[in-house]
């Protein structure tokens, strides 16, 4: 009767060795983390270009970045993932075909990273842009006055100086990145959420696996929170009091 309740306590299903599904879950978890890290880094790179493009770029660059960030932030991630996942790779392969190259084998991991990275990029752009704007203008002017080249100013002054302003936003984005990986389940990529469903489907122990996955996600977010706070404290060491 209370089969699911009984299953709740059946932790044997979570064992690492078959017939336990622990290994599958952990593999999915690892895939989630890989995608989260990858897409986050990609998003940051896009964000740096986007933010500098929006702030210092020419009129055309500014408009193009504006279109990118507006569109990406207005469309649900789920829809973007489907669009980019199918259309993106399809389009890329067609383009390569036109150019006379063979079709590129884009595996699920890479596709997932690229798709989520493009989404993250739009948000990173906004976070970094706000942070750069928060740097007192004089700091950049001082760098110019000492003969630094534009690229060096970006590398030595702008990016490190904006960090304390950007970190809260970037921390949130990381949390979003870890959770958005779950959306790749809908394109059949076996990350933690889909692995959970496969395990649950095979064993019918839905509660057990969903709760186990929830716990894994929570651990990740808790651990991330601790690390983010550490980084934030370090980055703020040059600031007197809270910003």
């Amino acid at each position, binding site marked *: 009767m209370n089969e699911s309740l009984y299953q709740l306590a059946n932790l044997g299903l979570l064992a690492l060795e078959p017939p*336990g599904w622990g290994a599958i879950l952990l593999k999915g978890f690892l895939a989630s983390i890989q995608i989260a890290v990858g897409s986050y880094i990609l998003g940051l790179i896009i964000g740096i270009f986007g933010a500098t493009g929006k702030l210092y770029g020419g009129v055309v660059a500014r408009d193009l970045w504006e279109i990118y960030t507006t569109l990406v932030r207005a469309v649900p991630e789920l829809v973007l993932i489907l669009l980019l996942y199918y259309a993106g790779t*399809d389009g890329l392969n067609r383009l390569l075909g036109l150019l006379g190259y063979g079709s590129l084998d884009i595996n699920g991991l890479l596709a997932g990273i690229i798709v989520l990275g493009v989404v993250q990029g739009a948000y990173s752009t906004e976070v970094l842009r706000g942070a750069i704007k928060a740097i007192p203008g004089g700091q950049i002017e001082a760098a110019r006055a000492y003969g630094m080249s534009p690229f060096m100013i970006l590398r030595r002054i702008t990016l490190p100086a904006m960090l304390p302003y950007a970190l809260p936003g970037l921390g949130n984005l990381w949390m979003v990145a870890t959770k958005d990986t779950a959306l790749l389940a809908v*394109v059949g990529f076996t990350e933690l959420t889909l692995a959970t469903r496969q395990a649950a*489907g*095979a064993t019918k122990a839905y509660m057990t696996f969903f709760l186990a996955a929830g716990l894994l996600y929570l651990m990740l977010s808790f651990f991330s929170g601790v690390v983010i706070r550490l980084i934030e404290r370090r980055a703020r060491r040059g600031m007197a009091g809270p910003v």
Partner: protein
Amino acid sequence: SAEQIKVGFAAEPYPPFTSLDASGKWVGWEVELADAVCKEAKLDCVITPVAWDGIIPALTSKKIDVIVGSMSITEERLKTIDFSDKYYNTPTGIIGRKDDKFDATPEGLAGKIVGVQVSTIHQDYATKHFGDKAGEIKEYQTQDEANQDLAAGRVDAVQADAIALDAFLKSEAGACCDHKGNVADDQAILGKGVGIGLRKDDGALKEKLNAAIKAIRANGSYDTFSKKYFDFDIYGG
């Protein structure tokens, strides 16, 4: 070396045809079929799970090269993709809870909520034949979810491939329910059996696969691995 092709499975479990086991391996009748066909056709097959919902776009955008996913050969699908010859064919059944007595007919299903998997022939069939009478045709992304909701009492009946239903009824969760009968045939919708999905321009591959299916039927390996799963002839008439 052998030509490499990517065999697309639905990533969601569909026992006894394709499902993941606890060690992370894909197992089931269709996995063995794919292996046998690939071996016969000298193809290097790579199993590539994709979402059932996007399996046709995955094929057309070359993420996979063939679909081995219990996909019935229908007119509608043939407009978009191509199929090999059929490799099995089974009747379509309807199951419901044991304490709920009804037949697999439009009258029997009057007022009932019928669960089907999306973009299957069952969805089309149920919509056409039961759509007016039934309380609701509820669509699920995976067969597994439909079964689960039947057990949870959120639908009254599930229409699907009789074999897949049989596997569910035999499982622990399926103890709630029994087989209510097979639906009346409708070739136009239910099609001519299940084939391997292919892109339209893949004529050479299609020839190879057809030859391989014929060969494993002839040399008995088809029957060998089928026996492990079924006590009847799944190839059908």
